């Protein structure tokens, strides 16, 4: 709790006991003093809403953007009730749900297509995914890229024991690549472009896993307590996000320029990350291929993908097999999406 928050609560309590601020107490129940978003700081479409403050306007209250480094931080922030809505990767979200964190998946803003890729060193003759056997491959720990790498190894029937896998944060990967310690890396932009400029080339992209039935995505996750209390804000959030996606699709380069300028990063890396993601619309997300409409949710693509992810994490030993629910449908709430599309 911040000091401001605390002071506000004290003030509200004092007002309540005096019985003079009845109106402000009712007002406080309808709209929180602020809504807290967890964001990774990277170039994503919802940053457009950070630039023009459209989320603040839609909510009628302030939005505080709380930065995080990895999906792991998001889980801790949710557990501590320090954030309300987060956009982060599928595998950390699944890990949180299996640990019975009170959170719900409310939307799938991004499907990872070409924004995360495996880059191999040309000088080591790594020309296809098969060539990583006997080589050292780096990945960012507990990320969608790690999950994609492990799946790529599995679906291509590679011998995992012959590959030396090292967990390294993207910036450390760059150092290790320069020293020649690693021969390949599965990571996102702008790091992929740095490797390509330094003797690497692409040998696998996450999109290739889709033909084997594996969907890797980023999800919008909400703290259940917050969503139960302010359902209308969640609906407004999804609607506003859809507007931002529409804006982006109308003018991808212009949007990338805006975001690059706002985040102070090169235009090219903003553009490559943004164009490497697929953006299913709110209506598309309600189809069984993604979240389903509630009735179809138990058999939906995301419910299945979440279960696959959980089983996979249990195989690697990161989550307990007995913690995995029979279905992830209970952790997916499509009611907000449904309200967002019906005007």
């Amino acid at each position: 709790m911040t000091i401001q928050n605390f002071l506000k609560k004290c003030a509200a309590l004092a007002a309540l006991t005096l019985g003079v601020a009845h109106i402000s107490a009712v007002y406080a129940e309808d709209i929180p003093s602020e809504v807290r978003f967890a964001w990774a700081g990277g170039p994503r479409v919802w940053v457009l809403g950070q630039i023009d403050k459209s989320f603040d306007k839609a909510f009628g209250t302030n939005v505080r953007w709380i930065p995080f480094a990895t999906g792991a931080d998001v889980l801790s922030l949710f557990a501590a009730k320090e954030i309300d809505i987060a956009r982060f990767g599928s595998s950390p979200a699944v890990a949180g749900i299996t640990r019975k964190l009170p959170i719900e998946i409310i939307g799938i803003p991004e499907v990872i297509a070409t924004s995360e890729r495996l880059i191999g060193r040309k000088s080591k003759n790594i020309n296809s995914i098969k060539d990583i056997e006997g080589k050292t491959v780096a990945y960012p720990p507990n990320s969608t890229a790690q999950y994609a790498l492990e799946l790529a190894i599995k679906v291509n029937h590679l011998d995992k024991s012959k590959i030396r896998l090292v967990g390294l944060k993207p910036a450390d990967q760059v150092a290790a690549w320069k020293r020649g310690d690693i021969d390949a890396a599965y990571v996102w932009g702008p790091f992929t472009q740095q490797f390509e400029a330094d003797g690497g080339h692409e040998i696998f992209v996450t999109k290739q896993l889709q033909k084997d039935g594996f969907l890797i995505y980023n999800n919008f996750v909400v703290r259940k307590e917050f969503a139960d209390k302010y359902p209308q804000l969640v609906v407004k959030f999804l609607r506003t996000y859809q507007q931002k996606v529409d804006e982006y699709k109308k003018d991808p380069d212009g949007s990338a320029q805006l975001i690059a300028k706002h985040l102070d990063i090169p235009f090219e890396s903003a553009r490559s990350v943004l164009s490497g993601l697929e953006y299913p619309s709110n209506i598309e997300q309600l189809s069984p291929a993604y979240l389903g409409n509630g009735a179809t949710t138990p058999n939906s693509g995301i419910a299945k993908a979440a279960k696959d992810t959980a089983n996979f994490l249990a195989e690697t030993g990161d989550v307990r097999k007995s913690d995995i629910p029979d279905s992830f449908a209970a952790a997916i709430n499509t009611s907000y999406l449904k309200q967002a599309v019906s005007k």
Partner: protein
Amino acid sequence: MNAVQRVAISTSAVALVLAIWQLSGSLHWIDPLLLPPPSEVLRTTVDLLTNGYRQVSLWQHIWISVLRASVAFVAAIVVGIPVGLAMGLSPLVSAVLEPFVQFLRPLPKIALIPLTVVWFGIDEGSKFFLIFISCFLSVIVSAAAAAAMVSKNRLRAAQTLGANRYQLFTRVVFPNALPEIFTGVRLSIGIGWTSLIAAELVAANSGLGWMVMNAGTYLRTDVVMLGILLLGGIGYLFDLALVLLQRTLVPWAGRDT
């Protein structure tokens, strides 16, 4: 208070804390996700002993961490004590090394992580370096202080009795400084063990520090808690071993008059 009473009081204090901790979970005072009760930590221990953590057995995690730390400790002691003694005895050596030691010692070693990958790569070298550097500098400082603190009267007395420089060192300086050095080493090893987590943040796939950090990223607070208990317990054992070693090697410690 005699020894038996002391042990009895310590044991009851620990038992009381464990009981409250367990009750906090059983009676749902605290969400077990935030603070897993001892029963769950025990269940996790059994699970990890049989299945290991991330395809590596629990013993192996313990062993690799103890090995990494021990190698770095031994290197820090073997190099650090002579350097420290030299600094304590020779004003010239002290003047040369002092600025570097004083600059590096208070430096948070975590700040060196980004450089260790660049300098030492992703193998054991970078982990060794991080533990070594945090341990090494405090060994130097305590050895230098111990050597400088040897009483001038004793040195003069030995000189009057005709001791040469070599004898002065082996008969007076070293035995006098040794108890102090031991205390310094105990503190340094505590510091070194603390930096294990920092060391295993760098491209590790095993070890207790890595286990705690990795389990944290998946919100496996039960594994985190077990790791913390093991880290604390092993640190305690390291210290205990040193105390025993000190009693056998320097029985004269603290009997100075």
